């Protein structure tokens, strides 16, 4: 908000809410009451707490009032009512503006209901909403809530949804006059609620934060698929469950992450100079249940965005808002022998960011060579008091999967191989992948009492990757052994990356040059060192995987040190301008152990193989963004930024000024998030943006080597629409439409194979889908209640209420050009889920690809020869890796 996140109300920084017992005495009395009554009650817990809007008329007056509210919650945790118990005073006068803002904010909050004997019940709590500028202020003393004698704050309030439950303070045994008869219980609790994000999440109109409610709306095959709810994203696993998804984002075929900076819990996922593709990222470690929101930056306008932020950046924020009783166990079985086991530990009395989760899943696969299994675990702990808050995060992941590889479409049409099959040859039947990764990070956030802020992180990662994959069948000949050829193009790729990284950032206090002009400065750095060992070989599947050719054997040391600074200015609380500069110094040391190897023709070389070299370079570029408040929740936004992608280290020559891929990106658009829509607060969000991106050096997949090769400069122009709505209670939906015109600006590099590649001005980039559509819709509703029309009553059991939920996800990927003049078929996928919630039991049926569309998860066009006994073909042909047919999974969840 304000300088940090909100254009409309630049001064409003956050809210402090403290839930206290209504009409209670001292804390000691609270304790006594609990011991006396010993009720098996659990107070409500805060799930979401969007901050209030700072009244515009008071902007610049430096006010920090507190409004105390009595809030009535229904048995679903919804806010039924909010009454001002102690209003704000401005200059010793009651001021309704703050009161209204506080009530409006609290009405948008969401709670897990109070429970008694595990049964949700209605309740009433006291909430204090504190306004401060421009961040959360520390409360220096422990003032007393008027008339209660209860200290209502004990620590700083900047923690995200870290509701710290107090002891149940008081239990009424009779009806509470003036409230519905079912309102039996009031609770005391103190809450620490979300501060604004430390940094503005919306730099450009294309930036989106996709919240938990949207992420949970549609069924997902696996956790990583939450990413598909980001506008313009289509993702698919074309290379088995142990190889990262292929991701398309806003006109970029980001392959496995080359054009998309991915973070999970703030930890970078992309791996530089990976053998399988620059910026390789495998999101298999993600557990969907613990992804709290997607923070999507489309384009590169924020100086914090680093390597691989070409199309944009996505961070999966981790947290568990719905903490229930602390444990959630899930077990799912589905078609093709699929199973998934999941356990979550999220102690109710800890903050949202503290949890531990583990999952195991396996499948026999929907066709030949598609069996796989994986396991992952994520542990995160948030702790700390006062201005500093810390987070420890650990993630571990392992997977092994068979791989069907690609099949030629003409072979499928001829019936020589099935759409979901793999070729019969050993070289195809031994395709598989395995991977493992462990990551750990220690992060801290600082929110100074005067509005300055900062954060830091230190992290460590180890990734191992091995892949056996054959794209081209039988076209390779050994470059190492004389007269050895045609043993099958089973490429073995090995990669091990060990990374140590860190980052730090600090934003100064706001400098008030005048009442209408406020500015601040931000400084930051990030650094990482990657130690990479990699190899690529050809192996003979018929003879115990003998190696029959060596293509890569290298060690890489890559260091990336980035610095940035940014000035943040707010003028008249309507115009926010950000401008900064980021520079990254990258250095590489390469030990190419096959360097100077001369294939077969000169067997008696007078030197020892190997080519050691080093290179370095500096990538820098400006980042600007501006937003202007037009009216109620409508902002016009424009941004320009320059980012980079680091080179694959092995391509560098000694002393070369490392040639970075430069991306220039701009974006203009409108963002509309009215305070109220459909009769409820913050129930609508609309984003519309036009964007332009220039990439100096695009790359595309090269099947013969199974990796990325240079393509040339490119330009993308397009538009994105994103809408999120909560039109009815219990119904949430989001839809995004992304169109792009992606063109090559120069002919692709000449090769001996093709010295003058075909090129026409305006020629479209291969593999980029012009149109991507995604929709997520979810709804839940009480289906049956033993006491319809009223809330739960005494003696009610958890099984007296039956709730239902449905969800759907729809993805559309338009036909897209492939290399050599071919086109891939469009893809339309519809997923559905429906479930029942009965007490602690939750039963869900998920059906994926409901229409049983036969589609290609990935599609290529290249030359191959998959019929080794026939006249070889040499012209490019369409190849597909089949996507899954209709599958289902039944999931039983128990909350303990």
């Amino acid at each position, binding site marked *: 908000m304000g300088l940090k996140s909100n254009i409309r109300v630049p001064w409003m920084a956050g809210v402090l809410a403290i839930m206290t017992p209504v009409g209670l005495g001292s804390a000691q009395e609270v304790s006594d009451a609990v011991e006396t009554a010993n009720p098996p009650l659990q107070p409500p817990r805060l799930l979401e707490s969007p901050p209030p809007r700072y009244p515009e008329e008071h902007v610049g007056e430096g006010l920090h009032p507190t409004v105390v509210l009595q809030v009535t919650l229904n048995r679903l945790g919804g806010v039924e009512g909010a009454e001002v118990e102690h209003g704000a005073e401005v200059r010793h006068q009651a001021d309704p503006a703050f009161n209204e803002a506080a009530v409006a904010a609290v009405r948008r909050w969401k709670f897990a209901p109070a429970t008694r004997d595990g049964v949700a019940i209605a309740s009433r709590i006291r909430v204090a909403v504190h306004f401060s500028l421009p961040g959360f202020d520390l409360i220096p003393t422990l003032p007393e809530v008027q008339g209660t004698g209860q200290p209502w704050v004990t620590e700083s309030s900047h923690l995200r949804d870290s509701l710290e439950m107090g002891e149940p303070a008081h239990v009424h045994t009779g009806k509470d006059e003036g409230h519905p008869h079912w309102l039996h219980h009031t609770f005391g609790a103190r809450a620490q609620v979300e501060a604004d994000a430390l940094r503005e999440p919306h730099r450009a109109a294309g930036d989106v934060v996709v919240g938990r409610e949207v992420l949970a709306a549609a069924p997902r095959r696996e956790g990583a698929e939450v990413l598909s709810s980001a506008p313009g994203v289509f993702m698919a696993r074309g290379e088995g469950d142990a190889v990262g998804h292929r991701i398309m984002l806003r006109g970029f075929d980001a392959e496995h992450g080359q054009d998309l900076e991915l973070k999970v819990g703030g930890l970078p996922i992309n791996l530089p100079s990976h053998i399988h593709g620059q910026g390789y990222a495998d999101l298999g470690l993600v557990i969907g249940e613990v992804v709290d929101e997607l923070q999507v930056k489309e384009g590169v306008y924020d100086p914090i965005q680093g390597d691989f932020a070409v199309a944009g950046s996505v961070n999966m924020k981790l947290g568990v808002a719905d903490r229930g009783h602390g444990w959630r166990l899930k077990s799912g079985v589905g078609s093709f022998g699929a199973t998934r086991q999941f356990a979550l530990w999220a102690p109710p009395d800890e903050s949202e960011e503290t949890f531990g989760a583990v999952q195991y899943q396996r499948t026999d696969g929907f066709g030949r060579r598609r069996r796989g299994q994986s396991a992952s675990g994520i542990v995160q702990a948030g702790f700390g008091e006062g201005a500093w808050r810390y987070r420890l995060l650990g993630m571990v992941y392992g997977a092994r999967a068979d791989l069907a590889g690609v099949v030629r479409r003409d072979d499928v049409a001829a019936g020589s191989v099935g759409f979901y099959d793999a070729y019969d040859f050993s070289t195809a039947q031994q395709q598989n992948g395995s991977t493992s990764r462990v990551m750990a990070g220690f992060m801290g956030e600082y929110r100074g009492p005067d509005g300055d802020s900062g954060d830091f992180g230190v992290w460590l990662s180890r990734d191992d990757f091995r892949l056996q994959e054959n794209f081209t069948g*039988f*076209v390779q000949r050994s470059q190492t052994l004389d007269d050895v050829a045609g043993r099958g193009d089973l490429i073995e790729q090995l990669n091990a990356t060990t990374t140590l990284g860190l980052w730090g950032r600090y934003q100064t206090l706001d400098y008030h040059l005048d009442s209408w002009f406020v500015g601040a400065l931000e400084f930051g750095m990030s650094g990482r060192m990657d130690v990479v060992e990699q190899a690529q070989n050809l192996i003979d599947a018929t003879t115990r995987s003998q190696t029959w050719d060596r293509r890569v054997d290298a060690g890489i040391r890559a260091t990336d040190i980035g610095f940035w600074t940014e000035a943040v200015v707010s003028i008249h609380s309507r115009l926010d301008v950000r401008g900064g500069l980021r520079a990254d110094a990258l250095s590489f040391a390469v030990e190419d152990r096959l360097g100077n190897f001369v294939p077969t023709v000169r067997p008696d070389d007078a030197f020892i193989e190997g080519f050691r070299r080093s290179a370095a370079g500096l990538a820098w570029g400006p980042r600007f963004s501006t937003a202007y408040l037009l009216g109620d929740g409508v902002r016009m936004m424009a941004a320009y930024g320059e980012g980079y992608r680091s080179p694959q280290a092995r391509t560098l020559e000694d002393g070369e000024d490392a040639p970075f891929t430069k991306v220039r990106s701009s974006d203009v658009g409108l963002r509309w998030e009215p305070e109220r829509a459909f009769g409820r607060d913050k129930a609508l969000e609309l984003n519309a943006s036009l964007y332009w991106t220039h990439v100096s050096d695009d790359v595309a997949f090269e099947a013969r080597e199974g990796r990325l090769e240079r393509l040339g400069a490119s330009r993308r122009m397009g538009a994105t629409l994103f809408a999120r709505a909560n039109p009815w209670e219990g119904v949430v939906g989001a839809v995004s439409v992304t*169109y792009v015109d992606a063109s090559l600006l120069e002919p692709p590099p000449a090769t001996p194979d093709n010295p*003058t590649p075909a090129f026409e001005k305006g*020629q479209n980039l291969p593999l980029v889908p*012009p149109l991507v559509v995604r929709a997520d819709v979810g709804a839940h509703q009480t289906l049956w209640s033993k006491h319809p029309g009223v809330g739960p009553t005494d003696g009610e059991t958890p099984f007296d209420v039956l709730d239902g939920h449905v969800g759907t996800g729809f993805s559309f990927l*338009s036909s897209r050009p492939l290399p050599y003049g071919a*086109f891939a078929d469009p893809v339309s996928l519809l997923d559905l889920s429906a479930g029942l919630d009965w007490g602690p039991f939750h039963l869900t049926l998920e059906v994926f690809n409901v229409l049983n569309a036969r589609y290609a998860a990935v599609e290529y066009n290249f030359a191959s020869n998959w019929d080794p006994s026939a006249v070889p073909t040499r012209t490019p042909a369409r190849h597909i890796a089949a996507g899954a047919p209709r599958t289902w999974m039944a999931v039983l969840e128990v909350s303990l």
Partner: protein
Amino acid sequence: MWRFFLLVVGLVGCVNVGVERVQVDLELQGTEFSGAVEGRNGAQVTVTRAEVAFGPLYLCAGAQAGELCKSSLLEWRNSHVVDALSDRVVEAGRLVGRTGTARSWMFDFGITSLLTQKDALLSDAAKSLGGVSAVLEGTAEVAGVTVPFSAEVRVEQSASAEQGLPVVRKSTNDVFEHDVKDRDRLQVQFNASAWLTQVDFESLLQDGTCTAGGATLLCDEQLELTCVGGVVDSQRDCTALGLFCQRDVGCVDQVGFGEGSQGYAAVRSAMEAGTRPDFVWNP
């Protein structure tokens, strides 16, 4: 919203990828000769039968076909027996591929080397010719003697380092460049007579001398001499028999170029690396 959707769908339909998939008609043609061509040592060679197995054919964008042509521009993977003495144009099929500039070609004479196995693959065309690439028959007039000949030649990849590659490729001297468009027609014209110009027919007629330890069958003009222990044991007149005398073979009705003979090697070499077919593009 609906109008926007239609607009977007319309825009999606305007994708330009620079190249297009094309099909090119392939026509095969021989060269009809009414007379003879001059061969080695003044031999007048008249070809009366020239059936050639042709295919597969690959056209490449690079200037050099072969290993550097990992991805061809156009290909025709079938085979066809060409009557190389007929100038009748035969439609053999279609090359399939994409637009672009074709700069080189490579093909086989019906016998294709595979990367995956030692034995070459016989095409249907080669099979119909008895497992060879070409069957050539005719006569050569040498020193007043008419020498009927026949040759069944296998032209196949023999270099182990080039296993899996077509055996006949455009040389750097050949002129070949064409911007391929859909429905182009490519005519491949063969001149079989030229493949025989390096055959040394005269050597087939060389006289021999009867010596101990020497050949047992010798020619003296058109007399066939049988040598036993260095002495002529018997003789017969080949001409009188309607035959002619071939060195070291004796009276034969025609010369058969066996594998290892100069004639066989000369024809094979000519087919593989000598006179190339003409590639003619027609719109």
